[in-house]
């Protein structure tokens, strides 16, 4: 049910934006349609891999190992290890989420998984190099990375204190 509502919401945005653009310029609209479809096709193999991979990898990961490193009982040290692992995970849209779900399925603690996900989202080197550096002045990018350093721990700490999710 929620999934359906989310889809309706997303596609409503697509239609509104599409109409706005088509009203402004039809050729621009068609160009951007083509661009979006190419982007979608290029993403498909990655998503398929991430989805199919996470289920199988979760199945073979030894749960005791996962619990020992990232389990709910590992506290702040587990968060630090998780954040470092996140920063070292290669970028790309799906890989970090796939591995984090794998960890969650195999018994990692929620704060540790939050630290991992946020560190991966903020620091994946590949994304910084491919997208961020070409588009922004390099010293602003490094400032961005520097001020992001405490963030995984702040979010994971909040999760630990609140006891959710």
């Amino acid at each position, binding site marked *: 049910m929620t999934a359906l509502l989310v889809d309706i919401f997303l596609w409503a945005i697509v239609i509104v934006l599409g109409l706005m653009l088509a009203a402004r310029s039809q050729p621009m609209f068609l160009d951007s349609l083509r661009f979006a479809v190419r982007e979608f096709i290029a993403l498909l193999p990655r998503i398929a891999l991430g989805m199919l991979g996470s289920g199988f990898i979760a199945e073979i990961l030894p749960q005791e190992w996962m619990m020992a490193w990232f389990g709910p009982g590992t506290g702040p040290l587990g968060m630090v290890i998780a954040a470092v692992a996140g920063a070292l995970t290669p970028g790309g849209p799906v890989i970090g989420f796939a591995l984090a779900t794998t960890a969650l399925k195999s018994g990692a603690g929620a704060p540790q998984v939050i630290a991992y996900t946020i560190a991966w989202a903020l620091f994946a080197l590949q994304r910084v190099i491919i997208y961020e550096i070409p588009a*922004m002045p390099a010293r602003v990018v490094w400032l961005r990375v520097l001020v992001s350093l405490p963030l995984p721990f702040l979010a994971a700490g909040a999760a630990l204190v609140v006891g959710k999710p």
Partner: protein
Amino acid sequence: MSAPVRRNRRAFDWSAAVIAALAISAAVTVFVRDGQARFLSILTDDLSLFGLMLPKVLAGCLIGAFVTLLLPRETIARWVGAESGIAGILVATVAGAILPGGPFTIYPVAGAFLAAGADAGAACAFVISWTLIGYTRAIVWELPFFGLDFVTWRVIFSLPLPIIAGLLGRWLWRYFAPLQKDGA
């Protein structure tokens, strides 16, 4: 003067190859160790997740492509200049959270802000806000993997982070920017 933005995204690169190798060896291990029935049940579960995700991803791609062309860059840059104070950081955070689009949209927009006089702290807040609380990103990529409960809490805990980082960035920039030669 500005470097061209690379847009070609290869469908398959080294990070995808690493995951492919991991996924295939994990699948083979499950098949050999636990048998065909277990293998097929995991495969069906994951395939149905994959099917659920596809319309969201297509929507995300379309939104990103449309917004790139629709966005009035100059207007936004006016809101988040160096003299915009904490309001500029807040505006940048809100803009990052509500602007749909992928990395190929967001970073060029942040670069355009900076070129048009936005402050480095606001640019940091903008990029971090898109990364951590941007809804299209969360809905398209994160939701199918984690489910609603986890993603909602993750986003709630992330809400203050772009503001903290933006203020920290502005403060640091004030100390370090004068030391640098203007190379941009």
